[in-house]
């Protein structure tokens, strides 16, 4: 099916002005939201997702507890206003439930659940704006929220979508591109290069698969760098804030006394 908008024009630019392998801007906001243990608002271009992590905590339903590890509970809500056409999805929408279980399966190998037997980790994801790569944004947001909540992870999980327009691969697709060309989402753990998720909803030629797959994996490393920088930045800010304040009598903090000597 030919579309009116060119996916990739002769100059090698995409419909939003990006090059083939260019990722969209990512904005990571790790500020505290309510009583969540870890929370983040993440934007990939115009796709915006907020994730909150609670736990590990006592499971709300006793039937959900596992005696040897923590149970991961993922709930996804898609805001009715998140896409062009207003549409309200019910809580039990098949697609949303499937989406949530995909995210759960992605994080099961990444979270050290065996450290918290009989507990539960709740992950609540809100899709605020959709412009392609929603799954990718959800996975990246969840990783950041888990890291912010201090839940032990084997590694970050970084997800990227990739597609192919005739013979030229593209990365980080928008809705327009997702509707038109075959695409896949890859979630990888950068340290080991393990793949925790690979999903495809369209048909993709097997000869094209490896190229896109490799590209998406290396794009994961780029995302990892940005996510790591954001987490480190937050940790640094919090540690700095904690060291500024004077301590109780008798408690000695080397950093604080050092700073006092300087001034």
């Amino acid at each position, binding site marked *: 099916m030919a579309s009116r908008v060119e996916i990739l024009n002769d100059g090698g630019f995409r419909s939003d002005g990006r*090059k*083939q*392998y260019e*990722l*969209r801007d*990512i*904005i990571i906001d790790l500020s*505290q939201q309510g*009583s969540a*243990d*870890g929370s983040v608002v993440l934007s990939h271009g115009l796709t915006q997702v907020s994730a909150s992590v609670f*736990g*590990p*905590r*006592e499971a709300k339903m006793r039937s959900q507890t596992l*005696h040897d590890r923590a149970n991961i509970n993922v709930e996804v809500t898609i805001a009715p206003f998140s896409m062009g056409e207003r549409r309200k999805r019910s809580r039990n929408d098949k697609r949303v439930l499937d989406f949530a279980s995909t995210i759960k399966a992605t994080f099961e190998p990444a979270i050290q659940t065996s450290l*918290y037997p*009989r*507990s539960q980790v709740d992950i609540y994801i809100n899709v605020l704006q959709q412009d392609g790569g929603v799954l990718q944004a959800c996975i990246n947001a969840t990783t950041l929220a888990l890291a*912010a909540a*201090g*839940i*032990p*992870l*084997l*590694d*970050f999980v970084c997800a990227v979508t990739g597609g192919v327009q005739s013979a030229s691969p593209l990365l980080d697709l928008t809705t327009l591109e997702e509707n038109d060309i075959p695409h896949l989402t890859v979630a990888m*753990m*950068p*340290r080991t*290069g393990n793949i925790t998720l690979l999903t495809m909803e369209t048909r993709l030629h097997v000869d094209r698969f490896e190229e896109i797959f*490799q*590209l998406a994996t*290396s*794009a*994961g*490393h*780029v*995302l990892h*760098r*940005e996510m790591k920088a*954001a*987490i*480190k930045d*937050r*940790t*640094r800010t*919090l*540690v*700095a*804030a*904690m*060291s*500024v*304040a004077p*301590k*109780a009598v008798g*408690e000695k903090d*080397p*950093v604080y006394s050092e700073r006092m000597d300087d001034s």
Partner: protein
Amino acid sequence: MVTFTSFPNPKDSFSYAPPKFSTEDKNDMDIDVYEDDDDGEDFDSGTKLTCPGEPITSSHAYMRGHGTFIDQETVISSVAGTIERVNKLVSVRAIRTRYNAEVGDLIVGRITEVQPRRWKVDANSRQDAVLMLSSINLPGGVQRRKLESDELQIRQFFEEGDLLVAEVQSFFADGTMSLHTRSLTYGKLRNGQLVCVPPILIRRLKSHFVSLPCNVDLILGLNGYIWVSKHINQNRRPGEEGLDAESVYSNQNEAIDAPTRMAISRVTNLIKVLASHFVPLSDVILLEAYEWAIENDVEVKDLTQTDVCEALILTVGTKG
């Protein structure tokens, strides 16, 4: 905040090999934690900070502690926080996490469930704590044995939703903590207000029962729950001579006059402000903050406004 991410065109390099993380991470790895022990932290260069999946050291030379795991003979961090080392033991202390209990800790908790001969207590931990009927002070004498009638009227002591202060007594095999209130200082909480802060902000102090001179008592639970209440005269504490069920397990608040209510709310707001700026709480800093609020004549309701918060944090940070 991260704004721009571009990806190099792989056509130039002819290969799609992912960039090797080991070379890429060189600038982070130049922190050799084990060389500069006593230099203290240097926040600007990110020394001693780490995040999940980041290699720390070889597992041959060091033992792994909390917040780390071993993969291919390397100790790797699993949480974001500060690296700590005690001799050969390397651990990572997460900057924000749930409360990790230790025996003897003082905690403030809320009853979530009543079970046969025990209560479940929410203590901001990874599982609800357990308070056994046998580990509370039964009315009518400290050394009294528990009777069947006590089991039947278990809700007379604590009900769902009741707040209590207790001490961590021991741990069960699965890591659940067991509490006890077998002291006159522990028990049901009344006449006040609960504030929740991140547990890392509460340091171990000589005493977690703090009396501020503004007629306010504080209980700083190590689990991040803080009880702010009306000051109760030490020698008038209920149950000093002979425990009676009415006073220790009573659900009735005493009459609290308006100035005390103001003081309680002021202290509560101050704690919230300090916690939102991640300032560790202690009796000294709270007193300082309270004096600042009185000196500057800040209304209780204005305390949470952004400009007031910042002014407060500045004063508290520079003093001392």
